[in-house]
């Protein structure tokens, strides 16, 4: 196989507060201030952006000396935390912005999908927008002519194809836009996290199409996502970026494993501002999600037991004090609530632990509600105080949707079910 993309020493630098403040009057103001030997009045605007805190200069490396090769026909996942440089990399590859240093060699046409429906005009009909969007993405008109029926068919909105898109529902809009994108003619396809929109059925169709693209047609696909499940399903290799550097480039399973272990903890929430809580007689100070042996964990592999640790402060004695925690789906549906048994408690700082080893949650994000109360009155109730991520990447290589629990149900109609 030959190399489709070769990246050599790629760097991208952003200057903070140096490129001008945006209006002439401010630039003049700044120049005037510097001339009088005063501090730059607008420099601070930039500094807060400096996530990586490389303090001494206002230069930020969004990407730093990245080199890698991608083989033709590979489906490559790009993972990393927010700000790791994933989007910058895709932007440079799509030529939306240019690199500061380094070269990229590409073989074949690149189609990039950083957004679905770029350039859609609300007044134009679906059909007209297919042409407009397709040509913006680099197709020729006659190429679209040839694929028009296929595109309309894929979108599944044939009936409304001659209606202005401003009358479309957002779902229809996305369907149409993705249909165009899915039929782009290119050897390399770059996809940012755009599949998050659209209904489940359509998402599945798109995933299928993308899988087909990389496996069937030998196209190279670059795919950015936070959804490890999708990455695992689609990609055979992964790039793992961290703070602008390439940490790892190897098979998907290995990279995802490293990524999940290496992440810093978003699962720990500290409520610092005690002043905000002056009206409360007791409040939550800190919430952590941990493994059973006490390590903080961001994404819990599906099926693994975990615990919730809550630190709280009570300003007075409470009789029959209880603490409760509840798990809610992202659609706000309550799943599970536990209460501690009531006990008389004195003022002070306490830690409560909730151990979850009996509940099996499937892949996804859930949120946690935590409440402090006495028998009669609520002391504090925190909604969505912490996110709970259940990741599909488990050590077990089972289909993540199927788990064995202690209590199995009986199969009523065995003929319709296949059990592995």
């Amino acid at each position: 196989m030959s190399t489709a993309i070769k990246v050599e020493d790629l760097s991208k630098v952003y200057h903070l507060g140096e490129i001008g403040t945006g209006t002439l009057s401010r630039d003049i103001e700044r120049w005037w201030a510097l001339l009088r030997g005063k501090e730059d009045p607008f420099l601070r605007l930039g500094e807060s952006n400096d996530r990586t805190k490389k303090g001494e200069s206002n230069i930020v490396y969004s990407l730093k000396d990245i080199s890698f090769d991608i083989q033709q026909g590979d489906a490559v996942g790009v993972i990393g935390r927010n700000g790791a440089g994933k989007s910058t990399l895709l932007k440079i590859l799509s030529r939306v912005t240019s690199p500061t240093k380094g070269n990229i060699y590409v073989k074949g046409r690149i189609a990039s999908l950083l957004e679905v429906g770029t350039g859609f005009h609300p007044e134009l009909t679906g059909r007209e927008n297919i042409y407009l969007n397709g040509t913006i993405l680099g197709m020729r008109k006659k190429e679209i002519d040839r694929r028009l029926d296929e595109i309309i068919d894929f979108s599944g909105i044939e009936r409304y194809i001659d209606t202005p898109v401003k009358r479309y529902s957002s779902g229809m809009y996305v369907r149409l836009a993705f249909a165009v994108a899915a039929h782009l003619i290119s050897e390399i396809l770059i996809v940012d996290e755009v599949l998050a929109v659209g209904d489940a059925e359509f998402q599945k169709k798109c995933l299928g199409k993308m899988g087909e693209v990389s496996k069937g047609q030998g196209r190279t696909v670059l795919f950015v996502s936070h959804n490890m499940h999708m990455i695992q399903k689609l990609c055979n290799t992964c790039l793992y970026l961290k703070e602008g550097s390439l940490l790892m480039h190897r098979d998907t399973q290995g990279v995802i494993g490293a990524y999940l272990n290496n992440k810093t903890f978003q699962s720990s929430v500290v409520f610092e501002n005690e002043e905000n809580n002056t009206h409360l007689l007791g409040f939550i100070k800190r919430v952590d999600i941990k493994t059973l042996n006490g390590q903080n964990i961001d994404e819990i592999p599906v099926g693994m037991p975990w615990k919730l640790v809550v630190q709280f402060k009570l300003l007075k004695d409470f009789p029959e004090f209880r603490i409760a925690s509840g798990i809610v789906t992202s659609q706000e549906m309550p799943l599970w609530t536990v209460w501690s048994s009531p006990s008389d408690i004195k003022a002070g700082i306490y830690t409560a632990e909730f151990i979850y080893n009996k509940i099996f949650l499937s892949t996804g994000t859930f949120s946690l509600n935590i409440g402090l109360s006495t028998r009669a009155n609520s002391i504090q109730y925190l909604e969505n105080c912490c996110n709970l991520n259940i990741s599909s990447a488990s050590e077990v290589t089972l289909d993540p949707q199927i788990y064995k629990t202690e209590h199995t149900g009986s199969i009523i109609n065995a003929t319709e079910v296949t059990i592995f």
Partner: protein
Amino acid sequence: MHSDEKDWSLIIKPRGNIFELNLEELWHYRDLVWLLVKRDFVSFYKQTIFGPIWFFIQPIFTTIIFVLVFGNLAGFSTDGLPQPLFYMTNIVAWNYFADCINKTSTVFKDNAQIFGKVYFPRLIMPFSIVISNLVRFGVQFILLIIMIAYYILFRGYHPNFTWYLLLYPVMIVLMAALGLGAGMIISAMTTKYRDLSFLVSFGVQLYMYITPIIYPLSSFPAKYKKIALLNPMSPIVEGMRLGLLGKGDLTMGTFIYTVVIVLAILTMGIIIFNKVEKTFVDTV
């Protein structure tokens, strides 16, 4: 490292040569120009009652006002031409120029959303603007032809068509190129300083008054005429009037001067635009 650069179909480099202009790529995207023009035209009159008639209304009313104010109240000369014809010829021409420069100068701001998400040669956008406005100009030109025909048939106006008529399309191209070039230079600067975009809209309005639109160049005293001719739009407007109505102040010298200036501004515009397009996403 890579001696064999021909193996690759695309090389992304930090910053290309400023004179680098990928014409082949531009040509590949020609369908996009056409579709953008169509988009502009269709979206202009969608959900309006009069539709494309709106293209007529603006020049008609402006002509009426100019005739009343400048022709009758102020009594400006019109080179012996019927006032409505004189003004409308100039207005239609000026509209095209003003639209080109106004729209082109905000091209980065208006399209930041698209430019930030997908790559295509950015020059496509200003080109499509100039061509879209040409469609609009074409519609207004029809109105102008109707006016001239009316004057010939019912008002006893004697047309004075000569070979100079061929100058008319040449002048349109020059005007488009000037608007495009100047617009691109301004657009490149507005990515950094938004202030300029406020300046442009009224700057263009003021520019009209120093261009022979509401008066002919011939009404200038000789010593100021030289200064007025520094303005590349003066020979263009005069040339257009010369072609269509047979009265205008254009010499070989002023014509060549204008062509040189227009080409210089256009080249500068393309170079600056090309330089800015590479990184503007980071500054907007």
